[in-house]
C-alpha cells in the first residue's frame, strides 16, 4: 500500500486549514466570545466578561419583540420558498420545452433579475410600490379611478406581501437555473420509453421529471431558505423594516437581520446582538443539518 507521509498531507492541507480558520472559524468564535461580554457603545475597547447575561436579556426580550421577529421571519421563508420553487419550475419547464423559440433571448431575459445588484433592484421596487408616484398605483389608477391607491408599503400586511413579491422577482432565477440544468441532464430515452407505454404529460412529469430533479432542488432549497431567512437588503432598503405601528414593537417587515442590523449598527449593542446571532446560528445550523440528513444528501459523509 502506498503511504503518504503525514507532513506531506498536512502541507497540502495547510492553506485550506488556514483559510477556513481565518475566514469561517475565527469570526464565529470571535462572535461567541463577544456574546459573553458587555461590549457596546460605552464599553467598546474596554469591555468585560459578563457571563450569560446577554442570553438572559435575550430571553427576556423574547416576550417583547424577539419572538415576533422570529415568527415573522419563519413565515416569510415559508411563503417565499414555495413561490420561488413554483415560478422557477414553471420558467425552467417553459425554457426546456421544444415549442419555445428564441430560447437564448428568453434565458437572458429571465436571468436579468438575478444579475442586477440587489440593492438597485430593491430601490427600483421601492419606487414601484410608492403610494402616490409608484408605477403600480399609477397603473391601478387607470383601472380604478384617479383617487384610488393600494397601500403597498403603508399597510403592515400589504408591505409584507410587497417584500415577498420583490424578493420573488430577485430570487426565482436561481431556481430556474438550477432546475433547467437538472432538466437538461434527464435522458430523453426515459420520456420516449414512457411515451411507448402510453404515459401522458402529467404522469411523465410526476414519475420521471420530479424524482430526477429532487437531488438538484433539495440543496438549492436549503440554501435559498437560509438566504431568505437572512434577508437584509430587500427589506431594509424598501421598508427599513416598516411600516411601524409603534416604536415599542418591531415593524411588519423587521426580519431577523433587519433587527440585528439596527441593534448592532444603530444602537451599538454588540454583546447583546452577538448573543442573538449565536442563537440564530444554532437554529439555522440545526435546521440545515436536519434537512440534509432527512433528504439523505450527505448520508455518506455523515456515516
Amino acid at each position: 500500500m502506498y503511504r503518504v507521509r503525514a507532513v506531506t498531507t498536512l502541507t497540502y492541507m495547510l492553506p485550506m486549514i488556514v483559510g477556513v480558520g481565518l475566514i469561517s472559524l475565527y469570526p464565529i468564535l470571535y462572535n461567541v466570545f463577544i456574546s459573553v461580554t458587555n461590549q457596546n457603545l460605552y464599553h467598546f475597547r474596554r469591555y468585560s466578561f459578563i457571563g450569560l447575561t446577554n442570553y438572559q436579556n435575550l430571553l427576556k426580550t423574547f416576550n417583547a419583540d424577539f419572538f415576533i421577529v422570529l415568527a415573522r421571519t419563519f413565515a416569510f421563508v415559508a411563503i417565499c420558498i414555495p413561490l420561488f420553487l413554483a415560478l422557477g419550475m414553471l420558467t425552467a419547464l417553459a425554457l426546456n420545452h421544444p415549442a419555445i423559440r428564441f430560447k437564448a433571448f428568453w434565458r437572458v431575459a429571465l436571468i436579468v433579475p438575478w444579475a442586477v445588484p440587489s440593492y438597485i433592484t430593491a430601490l427600483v421596487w421601492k419606487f414601484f410600490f410608492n403610494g402616490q408616484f409608484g408605477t403600480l398605483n399609477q397603473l391601478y389608477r387607470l383601472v380604478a379611478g384617479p383617487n384610488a391607491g393600494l397601500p403597498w408599503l403603508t399597510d403592515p400586511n400589504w408591505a409584507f406581501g410587497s417584500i415577498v413579491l420583490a424578493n420573488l422577482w430577485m430570487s426565482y432565477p436561481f431556481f430556474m437555473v438550477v432546475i433547467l440544468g437538472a432538466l437538461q441532464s434527464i435522458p430523453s430515452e426515459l420520456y420516449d420509453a414512457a411515451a411507448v407505454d402510453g404515459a401522458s404529460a402529467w404522469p411523465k412529469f410526476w414519475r420521471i421529471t420530479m424524482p430526477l430533479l429532487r437531488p438538484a432542488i433539495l440543496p438549492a432549497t436549503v440554501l435559498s431558505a437560509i438566504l431568505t431567512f437572512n434577508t437584509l437588503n430587500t427589506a431594509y432598503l424598501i421598508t427599513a423594516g416598516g411600516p411601524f405601528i409603534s416604536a415599542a414593537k418591531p415593524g411588519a417587515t423587521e426580519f431577523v437581520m433587519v433587527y440585528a442590523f439596527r441593534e448592532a449598527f444603530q444602537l451599538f449593542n454588540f454583546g447583546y446582538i452577538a448573543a442573538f446571532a449565536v442563537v440564530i446560528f444554532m437554529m439555522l445550523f440545526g435546521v440545515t443539518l436536519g434537512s440534509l440528513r432527512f433528504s439523505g444528501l450527505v448520508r455518506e459523509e455523515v456515516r
Partner: protein
Amino acid sequence: MIAWKRWNMSVGAAWLAVVTMVAVACGGSTNNTPTTTLTRSGTITVWHGYEGTYLDSKKAIYDAYTKLYPGVTINFVHKPNLTDAVTAAAGAGQGPDIVAWVDDQIGKWVKLEAIKPMDQFVSPDYMNSQYTKAAVDAATFEGKIYGIPEAVEAITILYNKKLVTSGQLPKTTDDLVNFAKSYGQSHPGNYGVVWNPEDAYFQAPWIYGAGGFYVKADGTVGLNTAGTKAGFNYVASFKSAMPTQVDYGIADTLFKEGKAAMIINGPWSVADYAKAGVDYGFATLPTVKSTNKPASPFVGVKTLMLGAYSTNPALAVDVMKFFSNQQNQTSMVLQTREIPANKLALADPKVQAIPDIAGFGAQVKNGVPLPNTPFMSALWDPVAKALAAVWTGKQSVDDALRDAQTAADQNVAQLK
C-alpha cells in the same frame, strides 16, 4: 501507529499556528507615542464624504498645504459610508489622522475611541478667537476639544420664486399649514410645502420650537412631554397637505420639478436646485404659535476631528488649523456657499453678500445645537418609528410618544 501519532502532532501544531495567527490578528493594539513637537514632514490621511463642488474646493486647500510644505503628503480619501468605516476601523484599533464629518458623531466616536482630544495642540483661547461660539461648543465634548470646526449647517425654508411671492411667506406655524392646504386645493397635484415628515432630524424645528426635546446629555429622554407632543401634532396636521408617502428623495424631486412651492432643506441641496433651474429664495422657519418662539432646527457643524490612532497628531492639527484659517475659509465658501464656522471669514463682506449664506445664516441664529451626546444614537430609531406610526395613522400622537419614550429609555439604559 507512529505515523498516526506524528500526524496528530502536526495537526496540533497547525492549529497552534492558526490560533497564533488569529491572536496576532486580533491583538493588534500598538502603543502609539504621540509626537508633540511639530515637524512639517510625514503623511496625513484624511477621511471625508465630500462630493461635487465641495470636493474640489476642499481638496484645493490641502493641495495648498502640501505645496507650502513639500515634506508633507496628504492622502485625501473619500469614504462612501464614512460613519460605518470609522466605527469599524476603531474596532480594529485603526483609523485616519483626520476625520471630516459632522459634530453629532463626536460623543459616539469618543466612546468608541475613534477620535481623541487635542487640547494639547490647541487652546480654548485660540478656538474662541477664530470660530463662532456655536461651532466651538459643537467641537467640545465633556470639556475637551475634539475638532476644528469648518462649516455650519441647518435646515430652512427654500421657496420657488415663480410659485410664491415674498408676501405669502409664513410668519407663524399656522400660516404655513394654511398656506400648504390652500395651495394644494388651488393647484391639484401640487404641494405648498414638502419635507420628510418621518425623519427625526427634519422635525426638530417644530419639537424644539414647541419646547420639547429628544435627549439631554445625562440621558434624560423628552419624548413623552407636552412640547414634543405639540411638535408631533403640528407635523401630523400636514397629512392632508403632503403626499402620503414622502421621503427625502420625493420631496427633493417635487421641489426641483416645480410641483412643490416650498421645501424645508439644508445647504447641501441648493447647488442641485440651482442646476435644476429653480429660482429659489430663503425664508426662516416660522414662529411656533403655541410658544411664540421661532421654530428651532438642529445646527450641525462640519468638523475636522483628530483620529485616535494618528501617529503624528501635532502635524494633523496643524493641517486642520491651516484648513480652517480665515483666508482659506473665505476663498472656500465663496465657491461652496457654506456658512463658515470661522467668524473672521463669516464677517467678510464678500461672504456676507452671498444670498445662501445670508439665508442659512439667519436660520442658524434660531437653531439649537445638534446633540453630540452618544445617547442621541438611542433616539433616532424610536423617534423615526413614532413619526411613521403617526404619519400613517397607525397610532395617535399620545400613544406613539408613550411607546417611543419606553423604547428610547430602554435603549439609553442599555448604553449606560
